[in-house]
């Protein structure tokens, strides 16, 4: 078994990052312009990293598949960004943010990484304000905060319901500035297809120009994968349609370990699926649970009547309603954490109490709040969300309870990285949602934006410099190297295969099929039998995919089906790994719920004795079983406790 | 590009020029209308006003300024229109605009107004200066060109009066958009004042239109 080198600096927790920065090797400004860095993805992590590395003077090549770096999916984050500023004087501190994040992650994250995240969180807010990010302010002109996701302090900075958009635009503007200065070369509508390794180090990528279809070689001294999460393995998720795992997956297949892939976050308040045509799920902010009450009918016949359209929620008498969260969790009620609320909804719907025609929806009812606070007060708090809901569903939530259902939202797992955010391949770094490092088994609300920007603005610039300091004599990496040739050929062969395959089924057919298996057997609740079945079913999907996939059009042109084919091929393989990871983790923690491991009351049951580790999987070959490596998690500052919301 | 020298070659510079010349031309319209009111009051007074306008040295200088204003407004409009056409070379098969017809057709209404202006100048300005104008007497008994009779004669023709009415209605739409648009172009926009500017613009457009069409209509009807 590989010995893990996590490269965490020695010394007390609070001094580690300071010490690291003091000891880190630097690259002389004159040498930086001779060193190339490739950054894949232009979301908060990738955009911020490319901009910062460009400012330092490295020669950066930034890639995104979208038509502009401004469209990366970070833009869709709504709620806010956490930072330990303690502007509200409610006892917040770096340590408290660190503690909340580790606890929220169900004690499955690395202390040193999380502490660093909490430490730089305050810098992020300073940086963003300096960039002109228009955060919400109070009348005195100072920044406003809101509370979020069950923590006991107000530390969330926000810009209405569009915090992700504003932060991403900030990073995009910083990136644009570097593009105009010539330190960053932007490659939009380019898909990363393969990692190129020379002498064991990441030295470039093969990319496809999505407009011309041309396959290109790009070399660099280091490669950063900041390509986001893999929620779209479920087909239906709140992720953007183009969000994909390809860059992360190619990293894995080139020797980077893939960690904790079974940890996925399910958001309890999304708009339910209406039919088979559905392409995407829409999130409704978590804040709705502050005033909305969640219920289903007590009688199955009422649920069925509602599903058939014979009755509406208003026909169900108060006594016939089951406010199941309030019933099960009297202390937290409707405000239990995301995973708990999601599983409870699934439990009721599986038992036959769902309230729409698919049977997969519960009510989120504001009538009490409207009676108590008045319609105007509710409108002031949630007006824009209610409006969005009405646009999508054509139902007025002031009069009729909303229907909601959980949906896949975020993936905590990802490419394994050390303290430097470097993967197991030297020179290959992973940042943001693409890595596994900070959120453990469950991410707290408003922490995704924080991690993306922390990695991009404040961590990678130091750790990459430290790595590149040894590369100042390397000189330009030639794209004529045999490894480039080999990687390019593999990419072209795969493209040729797709174009030549005389299949009968579209890419989406396979994606939907995979998504269904993943959702049913590796979704909100998993069990051994289901996961074993899923592995077999995915194997069958994979075989069928390579036999029957049909890609129309031509290769050397704009071809969106061809793009999707490559992405889905990778998702199918990732789905298999996720099931293996979920199968091997015989406990329930955070976003991973194994039905075999629950308390008598149906709550998640962790097994700290045997599973306080990061499961990092190593690729062993296409038809080989991947190898599991365990990085033991040492908790020196925090005592492990069972979460309870009763 | 040198910014100050290039000010009027930039898209925004051209907008300022459009706005400034447009408002200047509005002031001319106002003066023109006020002067013409004497058509209704006293033929002698009108003829004397005409003589004053064509002989006073200050007015002559202003005439040149006016010509320059017109030319700038027209040339600027041609350049803008050309650039705008080039910016959208392919049109939609189906296009629904929510803006007003006249706001989108300032070029068209402007061109028609220009054509009218040529006709108008030919009839009255050229006719007065170089044509064969009958003579009459002013208030002191001296000889004076009888512009009043010339106007009456012109408006006795139905087609001629009709052209005036149509052109002035189009001028009204041109002003209705142009007046408030000039303020927007120069960046003079305010939550409180802009609605008022729009109302003033509409009122100005209506007054100009009604004022100017009152002459052909009145003289046409009274000469039936």
């Amino acid at each position: 078994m590989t010995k893990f080198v996590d490269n965490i600096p020695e010394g007390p927790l609070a001094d580690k990052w300071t010490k690291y920065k003091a000891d880190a090797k630097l690259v002389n400004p004159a040498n930086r312009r001779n060193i190339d860095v490739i950054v894949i993805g232009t979301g908060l992590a990738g955009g911020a990293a490319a901009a910062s590395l460009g400012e330092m003077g490295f020669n950066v090549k930034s890639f995104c598949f979208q038509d502009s770096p401004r469209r990366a999916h970070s833009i869709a984050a709504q709620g806010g960004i956490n930072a330990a500023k303690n502007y509200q004087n409610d006892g917040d501190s770096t340590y408290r943010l660190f503690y909340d994040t580790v606890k929220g992650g169900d004690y499955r994250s690395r202390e040193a990484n999380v502490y660093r995240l909490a430490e730089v969180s305050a810098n992020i807010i300073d940086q963003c304000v300096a960039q002109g990010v228009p955060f919400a302010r109070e009348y005195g002109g100072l920044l406003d905060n809101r509370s979020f996701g069950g923590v006991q302090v107000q530390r969330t900075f926000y810009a209405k319901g569009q915090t992700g958009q504003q932060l991403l635009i900030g990073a995009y503007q910083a990136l644009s500035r570097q593009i105009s200065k010539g330190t960053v070369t932007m490659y939009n509508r380019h898909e990363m297809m393969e990692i190129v390794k020379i002498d064991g180090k990441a030295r470039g990528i093969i990319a496809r120009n999505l407009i011309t279809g041309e396959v290109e070689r790009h070399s660099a001294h280091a490669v950063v994968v900041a390509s986001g999460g893999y929620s779209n393995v479920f087909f239906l998720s709140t992720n953007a349609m183009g969000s994909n795992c390809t860059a992360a997956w190619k990293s894995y297949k080139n020797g980077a370990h893939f960690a904790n892939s079974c940890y996925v976050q399910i958001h309890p308040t999304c708009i339910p699926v209406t039919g088979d045509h559905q392409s995407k799920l829409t999130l409704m902010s978590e804040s709705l649970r502050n005033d909305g009450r969640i219920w289903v009918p007590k009688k199955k016949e009422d649920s069925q009547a509602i599903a058939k359209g014979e009755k509406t929620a208003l026909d169900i008498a108060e006594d016939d309603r089951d406010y199941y969260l309030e019933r099960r969790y009297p202390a937290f009620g409707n405000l239990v954490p995301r995973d708990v609320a999601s599983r409870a909804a699934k439990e009721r719907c599986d038992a036959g109490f769902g309230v729409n025609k698919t049977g997969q929806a519960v009510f989120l009812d504001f009538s009490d709040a409207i009676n108590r606070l008045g319609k105007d007060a509710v409108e002031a708090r949630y007006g824009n969300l209610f409006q969005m809901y009405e646009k999508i569903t054509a139902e007025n939530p002031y009069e009729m309870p909303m229907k909601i259902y959980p949906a896949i939202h975020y993936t905590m797992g990802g490419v394994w990285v050390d303290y430097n955010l470097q993967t197991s391949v030297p020179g290959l770094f992973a940042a943001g949602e693409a890595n596994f490092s900070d959120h453990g088994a469950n991410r707290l609300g408003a922490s995704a934006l924080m991690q993306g920007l922390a990695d991009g603005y404040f961590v990678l610039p130091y750790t990459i410099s430290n790595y590149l300091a040894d590369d100042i004599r390397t000189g330009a990496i030639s794209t004529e190297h045999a490894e480039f040739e080999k990687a390019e050929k593999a990419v072209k062969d795969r493209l040729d295969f797709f174009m030549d395959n005389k299949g009968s089924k579209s890419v989406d057919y396979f994606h939907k099929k995979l998504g269904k298996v993943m959702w049913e057997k590796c979704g909100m609740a998993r069990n051994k039998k289901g996961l074993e079945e899923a592995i077999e079913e995915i194997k069958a999907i994979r075989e069928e995919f390579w036999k029957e996939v049909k890609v129309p059009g031509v290769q050397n042109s704009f071809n969106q089906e061809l793009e999707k084919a490559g992405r889905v091929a990778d998702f199918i393989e990732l789905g298999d790994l996720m099931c293996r990871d979920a199968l091997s983790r015989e406990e329930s923690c955070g976003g991973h719920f194994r039905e075999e491991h629950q308390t008598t009351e149906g709550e998640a049951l962790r097994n700290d004795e045997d599973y306080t580790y990061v499961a990092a999987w190593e690729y062993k070959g296409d038809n080989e079983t991947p190898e599991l490596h365990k990085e033991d998690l040492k908790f020196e500052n925090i005592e492990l406790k069972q979460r309870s919301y009763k | 590009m040198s910014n100050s020298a290039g000010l009027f070659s930039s898209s925004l510079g051209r907008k300022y020029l459009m706005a400034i010349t447009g408002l200047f031309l509005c002031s001319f319209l106002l003066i023109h209308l006020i002067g013409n009111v004497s058509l209704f009051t006293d033929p002698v007074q009108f003829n004397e006003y005409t003589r004053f306008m064509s002989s006073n040295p200050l007015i002559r200088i202003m005439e040149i300024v006016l010509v320059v204003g017109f030319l700038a407004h027209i040339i600027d409009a041609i350049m803008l229109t050309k650039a705008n056409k080039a910016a959208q070379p392919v049109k939609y098969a189906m296009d629904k605009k929510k803006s007003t017809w006249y706001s989108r057709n300032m070029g068209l209404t402007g061109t028609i107004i220009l054509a009218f202006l040529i006709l108008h100048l030919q009839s009255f300005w050229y006719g007065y200066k170089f044509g064969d104008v009958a003579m009459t007497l002013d208030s002191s008994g001296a000889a004076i060109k009888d512009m009043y009779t010339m106007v009456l004669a012109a408006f006795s023709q139905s087609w001629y009066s009709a052209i005036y009415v149509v052109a002035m209605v189009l001028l009204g739409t041109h002003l209705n958009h142009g007046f408030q648009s000039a303020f927007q172009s120069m960046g003079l926009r305010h939550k409180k004042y802009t609605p008022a500017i729009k109302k003033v613009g509409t009122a100005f457009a209506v007054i100009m239109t009604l004022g100017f069409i009152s002459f052909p209509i009145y003289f046409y009807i009274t000469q039936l």
Partner: protein
Amino acid sequence: MAGMNLTLKVWRQNGAEDKGRIVEYKMSDISPDMSFLEMIDVLNEELIQKGDDPIAFDHDCREGICGSCSMYINGEPHGPEDLITTCQLHMRSFKDGDTIYIEPWRAAAFPVIKDLVVDRTAFDAIIQVGGYVSVNTSGNTQDANALPIPKADADAAFDAATCIGCGACVATCKNSSAMLFTSAKISHLALLPQGKVEAQERALNMVEKMDELGFGNCTNTGDCEVQCPKGISLDNIALMNREFLGASLKSEK
């Protein structure tokens, strides 16, 4: 519930060199609960099954924030409803038997790549010449609360900053003018003290770039404001006009 029958008239253009044409498709049994893009997904699935090339269109987040989707639907950018993007448009906005025209954004500065996909990198180019605050990343920029900003200014800056860069303003403008887009950025940054320092230089450079890229002029018809999915106001264009005038007069270049 019986679905709707529709006739689609879709712009098909196989690459930048192709002349392009409207092609008619008949759709049957379309659920009113579908989003507009899901309806296109259904059509594409049918086309793939028939061995035809599916319709290329930009789309990503499908929740109205990324700004990718860009269809001119029945004569309006993002379709008939106000304040939404194409991906938020649902089929219940149409009636059984409707004919729907679907065209790409039309502007010289947004050349068609394929079918309904256009190249909007001109927007990036405008931002690149000044749509930012010149501040480097560092761990020690001044404390975020060191500089209070009046709430009204912060809110106005936010409203301008909500632009998603979709290009609907350019698409609907009879002059394909990018003034609303450009002014939204100029305004967002000029309203904040952090951005004020470079405000005039920014206005000059961004306007110059906008002109150079072949966008048309503003004739104040107001179509952009009406069609903007985020309701970006013409106030921003007025502010840009002021900034640019001041900057041009002061500039020593």
